[in-house]
């Protein structure tokens, strides 16, 4: 037996001049296109382009307005990111907001007009003329905890239906969106819940110093926590794996059902907290508070690079997408455009973002 002679490979041909530079440029462009940098640049370019036309766009007051609108939306979009990464969708976020903010307001309200609320199912048991049971002191914190728990439970219900019964996320969350919203309306017979305590309102309006507000702190803390969960924990890795390929993830040992349930629970929790901020800045619990919010949430997530096909997206991207959406709405208002035009522009932006998502997927393949 003789050993086969080693195969000598032919010397590689030298790359054509400039090829390396082109490849580097291509890689940089791909990274830019894939990452959050693209959205950040888009925001800056958009603001610079709009500033001469939108009066007050760059003023300090407007910056505070934009931030006030940004924090709650960013929280909700980050919550949606968990399920979008999983290749799911949570249409019920708006209904979870409607239900939890209404329940929370009922728990903490300090007075209710009997003629408006005496037909509520909770009248005489949970609420009465003197309001809800948790209207003062530590009751506020307990009420918020209860709201978050309810949000988590509602999200878990969605997750269980999707994971255990293998139902399509779109249909499940569409159904529960109607269900949860109807319960919110039923609880108060469509009435808004007023007379909220100052401590509760401070959650959405509390100002610490300059632009540093209570909503800002809540949003940043939640954003950092979500980023940690998505990028540094096994759960985050499972989420991306399951979103990229469900079957491969299951074969690889990812506890798929648990991941789905947890992702929808987190979506419910984030929606609840974002809803608290919206509710408290309007100083009332509202069973229809988030009826028009869903398009902004999905649109912002997609603009932020969270793929509708699953497996891609980041907290920073989601937050930047929310910022872009808020800046867009703000600038269109400052241009004093009719609201129909504002809706048309938003609709076109959502389509453009979806197209961008498709292009990204084709260019980048499996890159996160």
């Amino acid at each position, binding site marked *: 037996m003789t050993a086969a002679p080693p195969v000598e490979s032919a010397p590689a041909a030298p790359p054509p001049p400039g090829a390396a530079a082109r490849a580097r440029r291509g890689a940089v462009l791909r990274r830019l296109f894939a990452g959050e940098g693209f959205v950040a640049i888009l925001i800056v370019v958009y603001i610079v382009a709009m500033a001469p036309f939108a*009066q*007050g766009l760059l*003023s300090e*007051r*407007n910056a505070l*307005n934009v931030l*006030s*609108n940004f924090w709650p939306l960013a929280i909700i979009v980050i919550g949606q990111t968990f399920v979008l990464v999983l290749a799911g969708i949570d249409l019920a976020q708006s209904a979870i907001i409607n239900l939890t903010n209404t329940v929370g307001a009922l728990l903490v309200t300090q007075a209710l007009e009997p*003629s*408006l609320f005496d037909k509520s199912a909770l009248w005489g048991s949970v609420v009465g003329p003197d309001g809800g049971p948790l209207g003062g002191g530590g009751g506020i914190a307990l009420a918020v905890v209860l709201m978050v728990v309810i949000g988590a439970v509602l999200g878990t219900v969605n997750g269980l239906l999707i994971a255990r019964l293998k139902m399509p996320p*779109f249909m499940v969350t569409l159904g529960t969106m109607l269900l949860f919203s109807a319960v919110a309306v039923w609880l108060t*017979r*469509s*009435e*808004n819940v*007023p007379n909220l305590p100052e401590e509760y309102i401070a959650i959405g309006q509390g100002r610490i110093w300059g632009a540093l507000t209570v909503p800002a702190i809540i949003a940043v803390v939640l954003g950092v926590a979500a980023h940690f969960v998505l990028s540094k924990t096994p759960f985050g890795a499972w989420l991306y794996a399951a979103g990229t390929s469900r079957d491969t993830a299951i074969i690889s040992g990812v506890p798929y059902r648990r991941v789905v349930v947890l992702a929808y629970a987190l979506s419910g929790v984030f929606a609840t907290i974002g809803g608290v901020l*919206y509710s408290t*800045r*309007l*100083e*009332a619990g*509202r069973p229809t*508070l988030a*009826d*028009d919010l869903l*398009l902004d949430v*999905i*649109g912002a997530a*997609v603009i932020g690079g969270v793929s*509708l*096909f699953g497996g891609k997206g980041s907290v920073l991207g989601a937050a930047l997408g929310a910022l872009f959406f808020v800046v867009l*709405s*703000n600038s269109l*208002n*400052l241009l*004093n*455009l*009719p*609201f*129909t*035009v*504002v*809706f*048309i522009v*938003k*609709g*076109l932006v*959502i*389509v453009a*973002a*979806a*197209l961008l*998502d*498709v292009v990204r*997927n084709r260019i980048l393949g499996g890159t996160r």
Partner: protein
Amino acid sequence: MTRFRTAMAGVAALALVTTLSACGTTTGGGGTSTGAATEDISVEVGADLSGKRICFGFSGSETEFWAAGIKSISDSLKAANATVIEHNSNEDPNRQLEQVRDCITQGVDGIVVIPEDGSSANTIIKEANDADIPIGIFNRPPATEDGAAIVAVADNRDVAAQTTQYLADEAAKLGRKVQPLIMVGNLSDQNAVERRNGFYEVIDANPDLFLTPIEVQTNWDAATGQANLQAAVQANPDIDVLFTSSDFLFPQIQAVLEPLGKWKPVGEEGHVLMGGLDGDNRACGLIRDGYVDATGVQDLFYEASSLLEALGTAIADGETDPDDTIVDPGFALTSANFDEREKDMWGCVITPPSS
């Protein structure tokens, strides 16, 4: 590839819904006038607002009253040479708050708002007060008296009571106890609360005439009102008196009563005594034709004129936190006084803008 196409189709549908929902719910968004009324329905502002910028936010124009009110305010401000920045929040209080904040960013000289409801009115007043900009609230009063604002509002309770009293007088002629029904508005709106209170004021004062009233919730929504009325009439077919908290619901009432043979003019067997509130064009026609017995009239032009005059004066005087409530006494237009008071009801004298 299938997933790509499915997702793209979903998003395209989402975007289409966004666009269509904007176009389909109400007309006449901010920046343009609300409709095509041929009449000039501007009112006297009493001040030259040249060089002044007024933010005008409203929550929708789904009824004749709101469409006419919006057009009247907008046209009146423009006639006074103000630059009007209009924003339609499409019934979203969060959006309305953001729109008013964006107006404040632009340094407007005054704000006029038709709020979504009483509690959001208070939040918006607070924003205006903090920015030292005078604000006027048209027809939908704040939930509390916190904050400084010029509020123009009808005496809804009294107008509703006057209307119901006419229905009671007519019902007494039947010589028996009668079954009343009230279509209630969204009770987070103080207007709806007061109209309901006015109705009950008369009902409670005539225990020998009225049975316990049937309440039908509408939430100021035509479809909800029609569905709930249908159910109520099926359960209680012997309705004698019907009071709707807003005239815009008469088409829905007709749609429910007509198939049951209960949509009959005054004098015919089976006529249901009917009253409303607002004083719109449709109610005017129905009273003229004998189907409706009375309606409470809000003096839209008085409210708009008084509000804008007070706001114009505050702006001219540099007053940043005017605080006043202007009450429109209103009146009941009935079959009995129709000929003499028809011209006093806005719905009888203008063709309403498209709503």
